[in-house]
């Protein structure tokens, strides 16, 4: 009787396992097809679309050779993307944690009103104010500059929300202890609180960094000189109806995704913490 019941259970497990294996295969198929395509001549991709077929007789590493030959702007885009991602991540982390600390640790007049403002930004798609924001960036002479891309978003609502939640969980004794020891209000933040926030920085840093690395529309609008383009903009520019750039497009895409996947595998815990930060824990 018990043995039979057990076999039913393992039968259920097997079905569930099968379901997730199928789901995983479907999820990984686009990755596989783009990787296989990087070994095929670009013209063929253009004519045939992406598939899972690989004709070994025309298999070629030319795309990779071309990528590393330095004939294209690819690594300029790469460098620009790295720079923007680094600047945006560091600045956003710093500013948002500073602001989040203010919301978490103090009671002050209009606190709820200001926090409501944070939530409102979270609710409004940025594309709505894109036109006047662009005009403003021109007026401020930030056009075609990394600062035009980064500055409007360094007080990100998500990070502020996250840091506020995180810091609310810290005991206020730290602050009192700091005050007793003669720290200024800012000294408490910089000397006592910042070092305590490393896990929060890791989680949010990955979240911000990933979004910045993949950011497309706003950088495309702000940046226009050829030597300042980022990876997504550069790759997008390769998609022409003539398909003469598909070699670089495909192999370049593979190389833009690989570092993110490696980072994800190394720091999966922080990725997950960053993604689920949106007030879920409540």
């Amino acid at each position, binding site marked *: 009787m018990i043995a039979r019941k057990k076999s039913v*259970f393992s039968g*259920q*497990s097997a079905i*569930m*396992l099968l379901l*997730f294996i199928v789901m995983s295969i479907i*999820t990984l198929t*686009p*990755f596989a*097809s*783009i990787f296989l*395509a990087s070994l095929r001549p670009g013209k063929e*991709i253009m*004519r*045939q*679309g*992406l*598939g899972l077929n690989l004709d070994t007789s025309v298999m070629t590493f030319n795309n990779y050779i071309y990528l590393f030959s330095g004939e294209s702007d690819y690594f300029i885009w790469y460098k620009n993307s790295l720079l923007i991602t680094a600047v945006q991540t560091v600045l956003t982390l710093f*500013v948002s944690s500073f*602001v989040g600390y*203010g*919301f978490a640790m*103090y*009671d002050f007049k209009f*606190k709820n009103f*200001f926090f409501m403002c944070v939530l409102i930004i979270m*609710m409004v*798609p940025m*594309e*709505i*104010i*894109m*036109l*006047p*924001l662009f005009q*403003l960036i021109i007026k401020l002479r930030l056009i075609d500059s990394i600062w035009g891309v980064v*500055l409007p978003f*360094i*007080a990100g609502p998500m990070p*502020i929300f996250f840091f506020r939640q995180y810091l609310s969980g810290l005991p206020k004794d730290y602050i009192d202890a700091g005050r007793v020891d003669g720290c*200024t*209000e800012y000294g408490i933040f910089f000397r006592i609180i910042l070092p305590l926030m490393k896990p929060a920085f890791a989680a949010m840093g990955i979240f911000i960094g*990933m979004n910045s690395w*993949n950011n*497309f*529309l706003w950088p495309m*609008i702000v940046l226009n000189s050829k030597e300042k383009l980022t990876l*997504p903009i550069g790759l997008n520019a390769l*998609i022409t109806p003539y398909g003469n750039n598909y070699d670089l497009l495909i192999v370049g895409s593979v190389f833009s*995704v690989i570092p*993110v996947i490696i980072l*994800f*595998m190394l720091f999966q815990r922080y*990725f*997950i913490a960053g*993604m689920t930060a949106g*007030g*879920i*824990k*409540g």
Partner: protein
Amino acid sequence: MNFKRWLKSVPYSQRIAPYVFISPFIIIFLLFFVYPAISTVIMSFQEVVPGHVTFVGLENFRNLFNADFYKAVSNSLIYTVITIAVLIPLPLVLSVLLDSKKMVGKNFFRAVLFLPALVSVVVGGFTFRLIFGEMPTALLNSILALFGVQPVKWLGGPAQWTTFFALLTLCTWRWLGVNILYYLSGLQSIPTELYESAYIDGAGAWQKFKYITIPLLRPVTVYILTISIYGGLAMFLESFMLFNGNRSPGGAGLTIIGYLYRLGWEQANIGYGSAIGLILLVITLSINFIMLKYAGLFKRGE
């Protein structure tokens, strides 16, 4: 002298410090959000050509009563509804299955299903564009051919549903793993005693799911619903990438933001573009406030 010292000490007082802490936000908020938002409102009543601005009253809004705008709004709404219909029940069930004791390899599958979220919309978009290609050799058509189905023109084909199917597939591919993460983290906060006592009371798996899991995951569901409404109404780049630009046959992939982009950027009709932005702003804010009121979205954190 004394006054100077007092002035110097002001930012260090405990009463002023919180305002200093949140001041970067206030500056950014006023400069890069409130100011452009007000500009949007003002410009939506103007005709703006470089160097020349005229007040045109409600003209821009009157112009919105056209077939393209209806198409854009209906596409955005349909897209929002179908993505919500898939991206809430599916991850809910999958995460409950993943979380069950009978499941092996939970962390592995969680990671695999999350991978697409790491890919930029540019790379993901053109990959799906080539997978959904109309050629018989493109992946989806070549799979269908195994079942004897003729090649389908998925993107901007004669039937509108094929375009929605491609958009929905792309969206599900990218966000399924993320929503599973949300639900999994919500499941951790449900006390196991609840399930144990339900088991003692003789509740089956379905009853436990219906009377414990679903109600207790409600905050997560409301959160996913909110970001899905936001993402659905603001959808633009997915369509932009699938159609290799903002032009799709018969407006099959036209969305509200796509229409704003077409008028505001491509045709430099900034006043008209602003009117569209304003309407979308009103739609999103009212939906969010309704959610806030009836679903208590932000009450949890307090």
